[in-house]
């Protein structure tokens, strides 16, 4: 057996547990942001306190996807490592895992952009996009020979 395999599996397990917790946090934060958006839509304009609260909730709603994008990059990197150095029998499974992770990172980066309503220059969005790109590159590296 590839001697790094147990260590890679342990990291994959840690990433999985973090992702599950973040998915729940993301859902909660988005529910709160959505409720704040509805309140804002129902009320008259010009309430500075309410606008600030809404902004804070949208920021929180972007924080979880930002971390999920980073986890996607990590999962893709781990899959790339397993695909390159692990048992060749499972290379296609590793490539599939990397592609799924890259998809997750891309979706998460998109949510960061939408939730923050920001342009390309925003540092958080840049970080999310960098995670997306890293995940894409890791997946592409594994998928290439099969194309």
């Amino acid at each position: 057996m590839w001697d790094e395999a147990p260590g890679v599996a342990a990291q994959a397990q840690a990433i999985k547990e973090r992702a599950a917790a973040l998915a729940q946090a993301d859902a909660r934060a988005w529910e709160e942001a959505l409720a704040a958006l509805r309140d804002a839509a129902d009320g008259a304009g010009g309430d500075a306190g309410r606008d600030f609260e809404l902004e804070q909730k949208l920021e929180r709603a972007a924080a979880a996807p930002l971390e999920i994008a980073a986890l996607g990059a990590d999962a893709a990197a781990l899959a790339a490592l397993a695909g390159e150095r692990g048992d060749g029998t499972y290379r296609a499974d590793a490539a599939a895992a990397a592609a799924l992770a890259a998809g997750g990172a891309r979706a998460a980066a998109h949510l960061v952009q939408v939730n923050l309503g920001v342009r390309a220059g925003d540092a958080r969005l840049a970080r999310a996009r960098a995670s997306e790109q890293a995940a894409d590159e890791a997946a592409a590296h594994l998928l290439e020979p099969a194309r």
Partner: protein
Amino acid sequence: MTTPSTLSDEELVQRCRAGDPDAWGELVERYSRYVYAICVKGFRLSEEDAEDVFQDVFARVFTRLDTLRDAAALRPWIAQLTRRRCLDAISGGGKEQSTAEIATAEATDMEEIDEAFAVREAVATLSDACRDILDRFFAQDQSYRTISEELGLPSGTIASRIARCLRKLRDELEGRNEAPEGSRRER
């Protein structure tokens, strides 16, 4: 003097018996979390009760260390002292917990506590670089990218470095290290 954290329990006991104050500090540092975990996780004591037991256990360790026959059996001895004091605290406090409930909860949790403690001891034997990278990934939840940026390491090597450190940790836990730690430092 040798770095205290590298001492075995047996050596630590010998130094304590010889009156080395640094060794006493190391003993308390090494076992404080263990004792506290037994109190809080094993016996569900309140923070206040746990604090009382904690003080009492280390006072007893200090005054009775000479009665410990096998210096290498420091941990089970401390565990036994702690369990007894926890039971005293429960019975003295009029808590409504049956002996069976306590025994069941304790048996399960003690296994986890012992396992966690063994991991902590094994981690302490790893190189600084390994301890750091494992702490960043597993305890601080840092991403590979953050680790790479903060440590100045190529990002593509982080997962592999962590895997190698975990292998060393496993070898240490299984007691089958072929080369002494430090002869091949992870960086």
